């Protein structure tokens, strides 16, 4: 963010509100995200700890008696705005907060693979390419032409489907504007229950402003995430403050 930067248009602060009461945990967003962003199907060695998932859906179990027993928590990069942890720690300046879109941008070309950002991220929203991306023979034909596959040894994360933002920008430019407007990321498009609302926090008339009372996961950290949640269930609000359920004593060592 240089001071001399000329902003020829009103900056946007793209963000999301995810309605946890609508999420059925089907995982359509997870697959749509992987297909859109040229994430390869998991190799045999990949599991929940070392795989690449720009978007994950966590299963949350209600520790209290009130409300539904289970909820599902879709979590991608939260696009933190204040003292963005990954930006602060990156020794390579491979991560930056874009002033025009509010998107935390990850540059795989600059990344040296130290994974400091993965440690710093409070949401575990970053993945490391432990191996070269590879598809079964012939399946390269299904790659999205607007997204470059990342190489081995770099970190990647959700960038709100930058390629779709690019396409929206191109379409706007034809009409003489630089403003991509509100486009649709892959997960938003795929959600069968329309649990995810994508919009601009700067727009007082926009969908996000109208989404009512929202909360952030781990709000207390003060990183001001632009991905926020909504739910009518109290236990989810409580869990969001702690970042997860406090494990019961007997399960802690299980």
């Amino acid at each position, binding site marked *: 963010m240089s001071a001399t930067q000329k902003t020829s248009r009103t900056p946007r602060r793209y963000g999301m509100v995810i309605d946890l009461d609508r999420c059925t945990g089907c995982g359509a967003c997870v697959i749509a995200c992987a297909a859109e962003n040229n994430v390869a199907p998991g190799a045999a060695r990949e599991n929940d700890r070392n795989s690449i998932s720009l978007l994950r859906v966590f299963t949350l179990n209600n520790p209290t008696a009130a409300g539904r027993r289970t909820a599902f928590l879709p979590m991608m990069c939260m696009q933190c705005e204040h003292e963005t942890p990954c930006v602060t720690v990156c020794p390579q300046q491979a991560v*930056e907060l874009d002033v025009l879109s509010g998107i935390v941008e990850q540059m795989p070309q600059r990344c040296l693979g130290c994974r400091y950002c993965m440690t710093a991220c409070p949401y575990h929203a970053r993945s490391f390419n432990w191996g070269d991306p590879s598809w079964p023979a012939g399946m390269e034909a299904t790659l999205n032409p607007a997204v470059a596959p990342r190489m081995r040894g770099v970190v990647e994360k959700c960038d709100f489907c930058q390629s779709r933002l690019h396409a929206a920008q191109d379409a706007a430019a034809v009409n003489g504007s630089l403003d991509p407007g509100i486009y649709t990321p892959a997960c938003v498009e795929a959600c069968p229950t329309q649990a995810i609302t994508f919009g601009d926090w700067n727009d007082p008339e926009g969908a996000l402003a109208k989404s009512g009372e929202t909360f952030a996961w781990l709000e207390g950290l003060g990183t001001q995430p632009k991905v926020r949640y909504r739910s009518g269930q109290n236990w989810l609000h409580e869990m969001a403050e702690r970042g997860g359920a406090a494990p019961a004593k007997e399960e802690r060592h299980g």
Partner: protein
Amino acid sequence: MRVLIAFLLGLAGSLAFGWWGFPQLLYQREPQPLQYNHKIHIEKGSMECSSCHEVAADGQFAGIPRTASCGACHAEPLGKTEAEKILVTSYVAPERELDWKVYSRQPMNVRFSHAVHVNKAAMKCEECHGGRGSATAAEPFYRNRVTGESRNVWGPRMIRVGLKPGEGMKMSDCESCHEQKGVSAGCLGCHR
């Protein structure tokens, strides 16, 4: 004295290699599939760049046109040249695509929006592509053996000073223009 001569010989030798031999080794000349004459299309065909390299209504840039759009005019040979005959018989009729070597092709991780630069910023094609549009023949294409990219990305000479428009399409060239005009696109504005 003999040491000085040896030193100068070594100096001259490696300078000669570096400035003359090395570029020959580094770049590999690749033929274009056809001798294309931009000038004749513009002058005789009274066409514009955008007649073939158009930006669609949704902002997608067509890039190199597909054979089908050549076929719109060249269903039959329009002249007596050998290239004309090859175009019609080997490409247009069997609907085969031409394997053009693209001088300005960037690596996969680079995103360039013609819609933003041409439609919005009203830049002329020549500002980046130089006089390519008025060339009478397809100039030789040189591929960098290390990067696999076109020599035009770096520029025609080893030393990158005094580059004219259309010479050099490296990130630093994009950046200097952006700096001059005072616009920034962030990292992912130009990368993907």
